[in-house]
């Protein structure tokens, strides 16, 4: 089981801020994304434009990352703090 988090415009577009999913051990983030974008088109758009960063357990990671049970995976639109 992994926990997905959506923030800001993504939360607004997707219509939810969290989602829990079962994933097989050893699945890469890339593979998870392939499944996810079918159900969540706004995610696809953001990911294609390269604007959305992905963090796992609050650290930004590459898409080759291999998912572990209990991971907190977050989708981060462009930051605008300050």
């Amino acid at each position: 089981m992994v926990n997905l988090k959506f923030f800001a415009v993504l939360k607004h577009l997707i219509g939810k801020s969290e989602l829990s999913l079962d994933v097989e051990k050893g699945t890469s983030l890339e593979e998870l994304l392939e499944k996810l974008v079918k159900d969540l088109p706004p995610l696809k758009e953001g990911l294609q434009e390269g604007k959305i960063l992905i963090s796992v357990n609050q650290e930004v990671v590459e898409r080759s990352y291999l998912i572990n049970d209990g991971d907190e995976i977050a989708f981060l639109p462009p930051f605008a703090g300050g």
Partner: protein
Amino acid sequence: MGQGNIRIQTEDFSIEDETVRVRESSRRIGGIVSFLGTARDFSKGQEIHKIDFEHYPGMAEKRLAEIREQALQDYDIIEVTIIHRVGERSIGENIVLIVVGAEHRQDAFRACSWCIDELKRITPIWKKETTPKGVVWVEEHP
């Protein structure tokens, strides 16, 4: 939390209190440089009625703490405080405060400028502006 050097909070901060706390952290401090970011009344020509800041709790605080540690390591400075407000804000309100204390002013200027650049670059905070034409999620490039 209300007294730490790294804070994300909805309530306002006291510029005086935060500056005095940095000043009193060491008798070696000779120069304090501060950056205060406020909510402006227009952005790209649009009048703004309201601004909402959202953050990723936990991760945002971690990034600010990392920025502070990195600044203390890379610059010849003595203390750093970073505070960012979130939630619904109005025009003219305080948004972010960075206070850097150093023996010499040049180090404090450089470190403070670096901290706000880095904050904008790596901290998961988002800004939604409400304008007469609707809602805009701001994508800022530092």
